[in-house]
Structure formats: structure tokens, C-alpha cells
């Protein structure tokens, strides 16, 4: 079968080159080993961290202590500039610059700066994330502490408010009481009758009556005395009577006692009356004094009452004012109470009081939808598509160009073998190589790196096969378009690099402009392929979920196949033209220009004396000489040779007829100034000299090769002579002489 023959032939060609064979055999092994070793790890980012602070304190140290883990290699720098230089020099990945006087205070912003090299696109975000995470932990701890403090104070405030609510009632009730008291006091004050007049006391009357009383008392005393005297007289009478009466002794005694007692009493009364009389007189005097004193006191009291009145008035006014103040105070107490209530309500309305919840209301948990022990799992789809892409495009393009530039290509084209057969032959050659390489890679991936693949084998295989097919076809298109291996390789690498860079392997698509990202997602086969492979290999989605995409990829491959075939057809036509000796118009132009230049050069060297241009200043055999002559002549003489009005231009005629240079003649015909003409001729001379140099170099090259050919011919003739003479058994002397002569001639 022809395709088989072509494939076998291609393999032989590829493997005959030891380097190619080595690369083909060991390339995939090397790739997967290196890549596997690099990516087969779950290790987190190893970061070199530099740090600097103008002053160090516990807070700075607490942050630095956080970083003292295996993941980070810490180094303190003496200045920010030094740390920055370390990053630029690759010694550090990140610099942490603490601010001066780093402490937690009110009205103080502590800006910790991270200096990173963001030219390391892949790395810097991970590094920043890593360090930020650590710093966030510490910041979280500090925030938690402060939040806890605030919450405690809030709680305290709440309970304080709650506990003091009672006081408001007390205050209000006391206020009310005070208000009532003051009001009562006001009322009392207002009801207080402080009207007073000493005349009301009728002191004079009192005095008069006191005198009367005293007189009365005296008269009473006197009466009393008289009574007593009468009494005594009576008693005496009684006694006397008794004596006369027949009584019992007891009754007499009793009567006598009684009479004695009565006498005593009368005596006592008398004494009392005397005392009392004196006393009464004293008392009456004192009473008068008292009344007088009372009068003066009353006067004082009147005075005082008047003062009290005015004081009462003032008190009333004050009481009024106090009432008002008390009202206002009540209002304020109410307001404060309401505020406290509002504060309490607000505080009560705080739903979240848990510190952890305040500091971190949302707890983020990243749950990968696939779990893997190493990063190789995640990167493997990218890696394998990358390998397939580069190798597929490069290999296919190289094979195509090798075939195209091979001498055998022409013979292939004149055999009764269709272009499609050749195309399929090359396609399957590349595909087989790719398949073998991919199988090797996958085997190592599963067996050596212990990654599971078999559960998604079929969809993965189909996707991989289609991806390989597409890139092979793309490589074939490149190989058919370009004619040399260098340009083909450059084009292959460029195309592959474009696919690689406009993908999310190097830089996330989501960070690119929207139109670029859309273009990449929809038209970049690398993105399309890795996405599909990721779904089958990593997520292990069943076939039916990716069926549409696989069909789309199949369609793309079919389109690529068609394009490849068409390109092959077009380039085949061009190849046949070139093989037939056809040159492009440009090449033809160059060829004829070279012939034309040579003709002009030879014509310029064959200018005889008769054909030289003669002027009054001399003769010229070359354009350069004529230029000099023209420069030397005056305008009048020039006009003898050139007159555009009449169409005369002897220089142009000479250029055409003698120098055989039509182009020069045309230029001269268009020029009618002396300087311009001289300049054109000078340039023509320079061109001739340049052509002369080129021709001399070409001649040297040809002579060199001719000499070589002549020497080859000579050696063959020599050989033939020697053989012939040997056969004819000519005398050796003559032969030697002939050979020697030939040698000396050469």
C-alpha cells in the first residue's frame, strides 16, 4: 500500500538521522521525567522573604515570628533599598517593609508594604498571597483582641445601662417629689399669712388689763385675807363651840384636827396669799415687763415678719423658678432616659456579638472539586497538550519541509500517486510518532508517578487523538507554506508560542482584555484542547458530557484537513513551476537586470576613440569623463548639445548608441540643466563601477569552480593516460615524461 510505503520511508528518513532518532525516542521520556519531577509535588511555595523595619518592637517581631516556618527563608536587611536590590537580584521573592513606630494606636495607620517583583508574572501573586495570608492571620489576631475589648465594653455598657435604668425612675420620682415639695412649698408660702400688726395684739389694752388684773389680784388678795381671817375667826368660834358641845373625844379630836388643819390651811392660804400677793405683784410687774418686752418683741416680730414676707416672696419666686427648673430637669431626665433606652435598644439590636464572627463574618473554605496529591495532576493536561502542540507542529512542518526540499520530491510528484496519499502518508507518520510519544508519557505518568488514568481512558484517548491530529495538520500547513527548515521552525515555534501565551497557562485569560480572552477561548486550540482534556482527565467527566466539544474538535480537524490539502495543492503547483525553471517576476526581473547590467558594462568598456564624445574641453569615453567635461564647460557650450525646445540632446543619443544604455539616455533626455546632466552621468559612472566589481567577483567565483573542474578533468585524463599507456605497455620513460609534463603544466 502506498501510504504504508510513504510512512515506512518517512520513518527511515527520520531515524537515519541519529539526532532525530534520539530526540524521538528519548524526547518524551526526558520531557515527562523532567516535568513530572518538577510538578509531582504537593509542596507549597518556597519563598525567600526579606524584611526591614526602621525600629523593631514586639509587634514587628510577632509578625516576623509568624514567617519562621519551613516555607519561608527569612533575611533581615539593613535598608529598604538593599531589600529591593535583593528582589531585583533574585535573592528574595518579597520584601516586607514595616513602618516606623509600628504599633496599634488610634489615628494611626500602620502600612506594612510588600515589595514584589511583579515581572515574575507566575510567581508574584502566589508569593504575595502566601505572605498576606500569614500577615492576615496576625492582623486577625490583633483585630480579634481589639474586637473582644470593644465587645466587652459594649456588654459592660449594656449592663451598666440596664442597671442604671432604675435610677431614672428614681430621679424622676425624686424630681417629682421635689417638684411637689416645691410646689407645696410654694403653695404654703403663698398661703402663708404673714400679715401682722402689733396693734392687733392690743398691748395697751393688755397693759391696762394687766393693771386691772393686778388690782384685781390685790383686791382678791385682800378679800382672801379677809376670808382667811374670817375663816380663822370662824375656826375659833368653832373651836369654842366645840368646847361647848358634847362630843366624843374622838369626834372632838377629829374636829379639832380638822379645825387645825383648816387653820393650817387658812394660814397656809394666808401665807400663800401673802406670798402669792407678793408674787402676784412681782408677776404683775413682770407681766407688765413681759408685756412691754412682748411689745418690743412684737415689734421685732413684726419687723421680722415683714422681712419674712419679703423673704417669702423671694422664696416663692425661687420656688417658681425651681419648679420650672425641675420641669426642665424632668424633660432632660426623660431625654437622657430615652437616649439610654435608645442606646440600650441599639446595643440590644446588635445581633452579632461574637468576636470571631465580627472579625471574620464569613469563613472561606476552598474545597477543590478534585483532590490530588500533587500538582502534576492539575498541570498534566496542559503539559501534554503543550508537548503535543510543539512536537506536532514542529515535526509535521519539519517533515513537510524536508520532503518539499528533498530532491526526491519531484520524483514523488511525477509518480501516479495522488496528493491525498502523500498527505495522508505524512500525516500518519507524524501522528504515529506523536502517539508513541504520548503513550510513553502516559505510561510513565501512570506507572512511575502513580497517577490514575484508566477510568477516563476512552474519552481522554479520543480527545488526545483529535488534538494530535489537529496540530499535525497545522504543522503540515506551516510546512507547506514555508520553504526552508529555518523559517518553518521559526513559524512553528511562533505559532505554538502564540497559542501558549494567549492561554491561561502563562497568564490567566480572565485578566486579559475581554475580546482577547474570548478569542482565546473560542479559537485557540491549545485552550480548547486543554479544557477538554482537563474535563476528561482531571474531572473524569463521561463521554456524553463532552460529546459536543469532541464533535466540534472533529469538525475543526476536518476543516484543517481540507485547508492542508488545499495548501498542498497550491504549493505543489508553485513547486512544479520552480522545478521547471520558472522564476517569480521579481526573480526574473533580477535575472534580466543582471544580464542588462552586464551588457551595459561591456558596452561601456568597448568605447573606441571614434565613438568617444568630443567636446571643446576634451573627449570622454565613459560617463564619468563626460560628467567632468560637462562640469567644466559653460552654459553656452552646454546649450550646443542640449536644447529641449528642439528636442536635441547629444548626450542622450551618445548614451543610447554608444553606451547602449537606454535607461541613462532616458534620464538624460529629461534633464536640461548642466549640473543635473553632470550629476546623472556621475551616478551612471558609479553604477558602472559597482557593476564592474560585482562582475569581477562573479568571475572569480566562476574561475575558481572552473579551475576545480579543469583540475578534476585533468586528473581524469591523466588517469586515463596512465591506464591506456599501461595497457599499451609504452616505454616508461616517455610515460613518466608525459605525466611529468602534464603535472608541470598544471
Amino acid at each position, binding site marked *: *500500500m*502506498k501510504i504504508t*510505503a510513504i510512512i*515506512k*520511508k518517512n520513518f*527511515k*528518513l527520520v531515524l*537515519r*538521522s541519529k539526532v532525530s532518532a534520539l530526540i524521538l525516542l528519548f524526547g518524551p521520556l526526558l520531557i515527562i521525567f523532567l516535568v513530572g519531577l518538577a510538578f509531582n509535588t504537593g509542596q507549597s511555595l518556597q519563598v525567600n522573604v526579606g524584611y526591614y523595619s526602621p525600629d523593631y518592637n514586639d509587634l514587628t517581631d510577632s509578625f516576623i515570628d509568624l514567617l519562621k516556618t519551613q516555607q519561608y527563608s527569612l533575611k533581615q536587611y539593613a535598608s529598604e533599598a538593599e531589600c529591593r536590590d535583593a528582589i531585583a537580584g533574585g535573592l528574595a521573592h518579597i520584601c516586607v517593609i514595616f513602618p516606623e513606630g509600628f504599633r496599634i494606636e488610634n489615628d494611626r495607620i500602620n502600612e506594612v508594604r510588600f515589595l514584589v517583583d511583579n515581572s515574575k508574572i507566575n510567581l508574584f501573586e502566589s508569593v504575595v498571597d502566601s505572605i498576606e495570608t500569614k500577615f492576615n492571620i496576625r492582623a486577625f489576631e490583633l483585630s480579634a483582641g481589639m474586637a473582644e475589648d470593644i465587645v466587652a465594653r459594649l456588654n459592660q455598657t449594656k449592663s451598666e445601662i440596664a442597671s442604671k435604668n432604675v435610677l431614672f425612675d428614681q430621679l424622676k420620682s425624686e424630681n417629682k417629689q421635689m417638684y411637689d415639695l416645691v410646689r407645696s412649698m410654694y403653695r404654703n408660702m403663698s398661703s402663708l399669712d404673714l400679715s401682722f400688726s402689733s396693734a392687733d395684739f392690743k398691748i395697751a389694752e393688755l397693759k391696762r388689763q394687766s393693771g386691772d388684773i393686778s388690782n384685781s389680784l390685790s383686791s382678791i388678795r385682800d378679800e382672801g385675807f379677809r376670808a382667811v381671817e374670817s375663816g380663822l375667826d370662824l375656826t375659833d368660834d368653832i373651836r369654842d363651840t366645840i368646847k361647848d358641845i358634847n362630843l366624843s373625844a374622838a369626834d372632838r379630836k377629829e374636829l379639832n384636827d380638822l379645825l387645825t388643819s383648816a387653820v393650817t390651811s387658812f394660814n397656809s392660804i394666808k401665807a400663800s396669799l401673802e406670798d402669792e400677793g407678793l408674787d402676784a405683784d412681782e408677776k404683775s410687774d413682770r407681766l407688765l415687763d413681759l408685756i412691754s418686752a412682748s411689745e418690743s418683741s412684737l415689734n421685732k416680730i413684726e419687723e421680722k415678719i415683714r422681712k419674712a414676707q419679703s423673704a417669702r416672696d423671694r422664696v416663692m419666686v425661687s420656688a417658681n423658678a425651681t419648679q420650672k427648673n425641675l420641669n426642665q430637669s424632668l424633660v432632660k431626665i426623660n431625654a437622657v432616659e430615652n437616649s439610654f433606652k435608645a442606646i440600650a435598644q441599639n446595643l440590644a439590636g446588635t445581633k452579632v456579638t461574637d468576636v470571631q464572627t465580627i472579625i471574620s463574618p464569613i469563613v472561606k473554605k476552598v474545597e477543590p472539586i478534585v483532590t490530588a496529591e500533587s500538582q502534576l495532576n492539575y498541570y498534566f493536561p496542559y503539559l501534554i497538550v503543550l508537548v503535543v502542540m510543539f512536537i506536532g507542529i514542529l515535526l509535521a512542518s519539519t517533515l513537510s519541509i524536508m520532503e518539499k526540499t*528533498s*530532491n*526526491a*520530491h*519531484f*520524483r*514523488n*510528484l*511525477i*509518480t*501516479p*500517486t495522488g496528493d491525498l496519499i502523500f498527505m495522508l502518508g505524512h500525516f500518519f507518520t507524524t501522528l504515529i510518532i506523536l502517539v508513541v510519544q504520548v503513550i510513553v508519557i502516559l505510561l510513565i505518568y501512570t506507572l512511575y508517578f502513580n497517577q490514575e488514568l484508566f477510568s477516563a481512558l476512552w474519552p481522554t484517548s479520543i480527545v488526545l487523538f483529535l488534538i494530535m491530529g489537529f496540530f499535525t495538520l497545522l504543522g503540515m500547513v506551516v510546512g507547506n507554506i514555508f520553504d526552508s527548515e529555518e523559517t518553518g521552525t521559526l513559524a512553528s515555534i511562533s505559532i505554538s508560542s502564540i497559542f501558549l501565551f494567549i492561554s491561561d497557562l502563562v497568564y490567566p485569560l480572565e485578566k486579559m482584555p475581554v475580546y482577547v480572552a474570548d478569542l482565546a477561548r473560542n479559537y485557540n486550540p491549545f485552550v480548547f484542547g486543554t479544557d477538554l482534556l482537563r474535563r476528561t482527565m482531571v474531572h473524569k467527566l463521561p463521554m456524553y458530557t463532552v460529546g459536543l466539544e469532541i464533535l466540534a474538535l472533529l469538525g475543526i480537524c476536518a476543516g484543517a484537513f481540507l485547508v492542508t490539502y488545499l495548501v498542498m495543492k497550491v504549493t505543489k503547483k508553485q513547486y*512544479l*513551476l520552480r*522545478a*521547471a*525553471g*520558472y*522564476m517569480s*517576476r521579481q526573480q*526574473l526581473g533580477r535575472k534580466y537586470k543582471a544580464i542588462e547590467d552586464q551588457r551595459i558594462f561591456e558596452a561601456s568598456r568597448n568605447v573606441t576613440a571614434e565613438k568617444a564624445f568630443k567636446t571643446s574641453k576634451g573627449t570622454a569615453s565613459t560617463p564619468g569623463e563626460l560628467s567632468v567635461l560637462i562640469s567644466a564647460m559653460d552654459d553656452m557650450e552646454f546649450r550646443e548639445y542640449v536644447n529641449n525646445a528642439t528636442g536635441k540632446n547629444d548626450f542622450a543619443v551618445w548614451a543610447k548608441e554608444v553606451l547602449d544604455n537606454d535607461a541613462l539616455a532616458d534620464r538624460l533626455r529629461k534633464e536640461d540643466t548642466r549640473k543635473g546632466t553632470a550629476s546623472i552621468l556621475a551616478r551612471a559612472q558609479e553604477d558602472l563601477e559597482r557593476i564592474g566589481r560585482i562582475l569581477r567577483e562573479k568571475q572569480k567565483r566562476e574561475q575558481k569552480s572552473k579551475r576545480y573542474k579543469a583540475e*578534476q*578533468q*585533468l586528473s*581524469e*585524463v591523466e*588517469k*586515463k*593516460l596512465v591506464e*591506456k599507456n599501461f595497457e599499451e605497455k609504452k616505454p616508461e620513460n*616517455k610515460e613518466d615524461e*608525459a605525466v611529468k*609534463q*602534464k603535472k608541470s*603544466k598544471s
Partner: protein
Amino acid sequence: MHSDMASAVLKLSNITKKFGHKTVLDNVNLDINSGEIFGIIGLSGSGKTTLLNTMIGSLRPNYGDVLFKIEHLLNYRDDKSQYRSVYKNETDVKKAFGFAAQTPSFYNKLTPIENLRYFGKLYELSSDIINTNSEILLQLMGIADSKNLISGYMSGGMKKRLDIACALIHDPKILILDEPTSDLDPINRKQMWALIRQINEKGTTIILSSHFLDELEGLCDRVGILYNGQVICAGTPNEVKSIYTKEDEIRLETSPGKYQKIMERISKESKLQIKKMFIQDNRLVLYTSKPERGLHEVLHILEQMGELLIDVSVNKPSLQEVLEKLIQGHKVVK
């Protein structure tokens, strides 16, 4: 081999081929007879390669057609007198024609036997036929001993022969050779012409182009001279020469080969009017209308000068001479 004059196996009819504004072939009419060796002569850029490529159908002319008739390719329904266009029967043409381009066309990294087997497969030959043909061709070409040598390591002559072998693997009826002896030394060239004769003797019609006009003279049954895209002359070498000259050409090769001195002696001593003498390809070339006498005189002079005669031939003027004259006669004046 005598050509079958009545049976043209290939007819070029009013072939005109233009590349852009340049007309490379201008109304070329040519018949190639079955079994002959036809040589195409022309200067570089005269259109030889284009003409040869047109014959095998690689290039389609702007006007005209190339017709062929190869009986073994016809089936019972075809009219045996009917010529068919190469452009409408590409597959048959490719099977019937063999082509060896100026640059050997095979894979340098394969051995000769691998090359032959590969191209044999492309001609849909069975493995047996391929093996048989390969052995025969390798023997014929004299490269059987190198059949397992990587082709790239072979000498120029061997490569040319391998190229021809590849062109013959499918036993074509018509073999086209584009400058088969360019880049070969004289000995290899001779071997190549001998080989071409051998191939022709087996019945293959051969069309070739060459710069080595003197060699074409001895080899070709007929020649055609191509100038400025036109075939200005076609016929046997003698017929062509006779059109332009009546003199004979004597070619001598001597040792030590002091041709200048020989020419001086001849000029002085020869009684004949030797109109023209020059040195070409390490030979002394003389033109005379009396070749026998001229040869006698020259040999005598050679003997006197102690020159050892290595080779001598007497012919009509060389094709080169004829070509120069023809071209001068046809040169376009600006």
C-alpha cells in the same frame, strides 16, 4: 537503435508556455518517434527544462497540447490510432513516462535498494516485480555493489545512475532525461552515454537535453535545437549540421597536448586551408573541407612534435558550432 519513424509516440502540437509576460515556449511542434533517442539542444534559459516538464504533464501549456500513444496502455476499446493528451490522462502518463531531472531526485538518506523499492511502490508495482526490476537496474547501472550504501554517500556519477534507475523502476516506455551528464567528469559522462544506449536498446524511447553537444551527436538519433522558445531545427545530427556547414571537423586529443604550438605549426606548414582551429575540452578542433588530407598533415606534424595521439575523430562540425551559427542567425535585434 533505429527509431520507428512512422510511429510517433509523442507529439507536441503548437505548444506555447508563458510565465507572466515571458514566453518560454513559442509554438513548439515536435514529434518523438518510438524507440529513438531524441536530443534537445539549447542555451541556458532557452526552455529545455520547461519543454521536458511540459512533455510529462508537470506543466500545462498556455496553448497547444502534448499527445501520446502507448499501445500497452490502451484497452480493447481504445482506438489504436488515437493519440491522447497527457493532461487528460495523467495517471497513464505517469506510468508510461520516466523522468530524470537535472538534479538527482531520490532520498539521500535511503539506500539505492530502498529508493527503488519505495518508488516502485508508488508505481503500484508488486513486491516481486519491484525486487526483480531493482536487481536488474542496479546491475545495469553498475551500482549493485552499493545497493545498501546510503545514497548520499555515493559519487556524483553513481547518483545520476541511481536517479535514472529510479526513473526506470516501473519500466517506462518513454524516458526523459534532463541533462543527464551535467556535473559528471568525462569518464562518467561516457559511461552514462553508454548506459543510455543500453536502455534505448531495450526499446525505451529516450528524450534528453544536454549541454554536451559533441556527446549528443554520437548518441542521439535525432536532435532538436531550441532557441528563444522555438524549435528552430530538428533532425538527425548530420541533417542539422548539413544545414549550416559543409566542412568536416577533426578532433584530436594528444599528450602532452601543447595545442597552441601545434596550431602554430599547422598554420605554418599545412597546405590545406584550415579555416578554423581552436581548443575545446582539452582537444584540438580543426575544420576542413578535406578531412582525409587534413588529418594526414596533422598527424605528421604531431609526430614531428613528439605529441602522442590519444584520440581522434572526424565529423561534421560539432553541434556546438552549428548551434552558435544558428543562434547568430536567429538573434533578435533590439
